[in-house]
């Protein structure tokens, strides 16, 4: 076994190792600290955990491909809220009153279209003006939040459609709808990154933009597609989330971008672009949700979750630096 092999496998599967450690730790610690008799690794508990991780997870999948592409999107929280408002508000628009429950299909499509348009607008600005994606989406994070407030002022937008709630609460083969949507998203985007020209080009652009341009790849359209994709997924996440809850607060989704980026980085995606995987992000999302659920299970309060999560993020970054050969060399300078 050469050390190079160990290093490579450690850095790619570290997140799954971490998940196993978490599972063992919370199972053992739960024996002594938990207030309930239910085991931590109880089937129902795990299914609930997957359901809860879906809203952040769906956006994180999109963030992965945007970050692999060498960009970042800080506006996902605002797109999430905007899509949620469109979804719930359009359910009661009078032009759709004649079509019965088919309005759900129309509303979902409207919400998803909103997400695609807002995402594509980000992508178009990044492409055409050449302004850094961090700045563009920092701006639109504010701007889109302004649009959210324009819609209904500071009042929440509420609309409880029972057919929609039933759909959200339904289970197929024992698994919640949200989890199915999350799983399908992971599968489809993973296929896109692995087996399509677009996916390959996204990696190439993130790895070395000049080389990609010289190789004849048109950088702009690929970035536009990725931003539209993350907009779509932010809206999809909103559909999954608000179908069950039925009420959008104009401040909803704030700080989502930070949670999402944390999950993606934990999953091993590099901020510089060019490396990262959807499967790693899936691991990052599950690891975070395990931490939240587990700390709650052993009776710790929310403040501990924040503290532990922040420290883990920094430790992961440090370990990654040490394992990464290029990083280790830079450390000596």
């Amino acid at each position: 076994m050469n050390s190079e092999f160990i290093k490579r496998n450690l850095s790619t599967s570290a997140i799954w190792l971490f998940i196993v450690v978490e599972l063992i730790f919370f199972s053992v610690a739960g024996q002594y600290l938990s207030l309930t008799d239910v085991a931590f690794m109880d089937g129902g508990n795990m299914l609930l955990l997957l359901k809860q991780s879906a809203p952040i997870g769906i956006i994180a999948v999109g963030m992965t491909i945007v970050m692999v592409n060498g960009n970042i999107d800080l506006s996902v929280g605002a797109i999430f809220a905007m899509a949620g408002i469109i979804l719930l508000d359009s359910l009661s628009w009078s032009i759709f009153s004649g079509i019965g429950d088919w309005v759900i299909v129309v509303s979902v499509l409207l919400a998803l279209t909103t997400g695609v348009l807002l995402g594509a607008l980000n992508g178009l600005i990044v492409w055409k003006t050449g302004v850094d994606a961090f700045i563009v989406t920092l701006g639109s994070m504010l701007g889109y939040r302004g649009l959210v407030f324009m819609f209904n002022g500071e009042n929440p937008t509420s609309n409880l459609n029972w057919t929609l709630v039933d759909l959200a609460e339904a289970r197929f083969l024992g698994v919640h709808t949200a989890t199915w949507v999350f799983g399908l998203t992971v599968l489809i985007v993973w296929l896109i990154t692995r087996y399509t020209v677009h996916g390959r080009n996204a990696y190439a652009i993130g790895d070395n933009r000049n080389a990609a341009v010289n190789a004849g790849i048109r950088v702009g359209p690929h970035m536009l597609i990725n931003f539209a994709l993350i907009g779509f997924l932010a809206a999809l996440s909103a559909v999954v989330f608000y179908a069950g809850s039925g009420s959008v607060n104009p401040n909803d989704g704030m700080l989502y971008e930070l949670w999402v980026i944390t999950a993606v980085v934990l999953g091993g995606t590099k901020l510089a672009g060019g490396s990262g995987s959807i499967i790693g992000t899936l691991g990052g999302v599950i690891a975070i949700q395990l931490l939240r659920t587990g700390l709650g299970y052993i009776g710790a309060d929310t403040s501990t979750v924040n503290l532990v999560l922040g420290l883990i993020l920094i430790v992961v970054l440090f370990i990654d630096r040490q394992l990464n050969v290029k990083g280790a060399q830079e450390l000596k300078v």
Partner: protein
Amino acid sequence: MANLARKRILTVMGNQGILIAFVVFMVIFALASPKFLSLDNLQSVVRSSAILGVMALGVTFVVISGNLDLSVGSMMSFSTIVVLDLHDKLGPSLAIPTMYLMTLGLGGTIGFLVGYLRLNSLIVTLGMLSAIHGLTLTYSGGKNMDIDDKAGTWFSFFGQGEILGLPVPIILFVALAAFLGVLLAKTPFGRKVYAVGGNSTAASFSGIPRARTVFTCYLISAFCVATAGLIQASRSMGSQNTVGQGLELEVLAAVILGGASLLGGSGTVLKTVIGVLILGFIQNGLLLIGWPFYIQYVITWIIIILAVWLDISVKRGKFWATI
């Protein structure tokens, strides 16, 4: 020839764009509302921008050195909560220095991680945002902090007091801006900050201590955050745990608006002050016209992108990117 003329127009607009925008907004608001240019109103704008402004001064140093600081919001919550808590336990004259030391400790930790260990600043400060928020909640036990004896303490001086008719927050803001402006523009340390941000490798080869410079920038940022927390605590004499939440991105918006590049190596204290004032005046002007507060978000969005776009257009000599 036409090309040359266009380039010249671009250059002028790029260099003075933010000042032009500032003047345009002032004129629009002055025409729309007669109260806008009154001395009382101008003073109240600067006063309410002081907290954001003080934080932006520190972040300017971090950004020029080529790094980011996303933790200033939760760090500001931390210092506000700590100083309010210690005020009742130790008295104000001990509470304030202790709070400054604790905040500097946090800033030093970030500086160590980013400067000496060379970790990515975006992720480190993202982690610290979460960790410090947790630290604040643990410290306060999730409760709001209040000063017991609000009338019998001189602690309110920093947020509500006046010297010669000028509110103390404004004086603190201006004094800190002047000091840091001189530090950045006129001292060897300031030149090191620009050098490290402009080209970190070249700076290392010319014997500039990269790690120590970055470390010091984060200390400066923490000092500014502590001052902002002091003003906030003293103004309200009580606070929630989440008082600074979301401020990190607003601060960054002000710094970018002022023309500092996220790549590092450019930006000045004066431009950041203008960026802060633009945000403050937009907020105030819209309020006076009677528009709802959220319109300012949309306008800020448009201004930020236009400002940075202009800046980039000048550098490449074309409006549109060719990729």
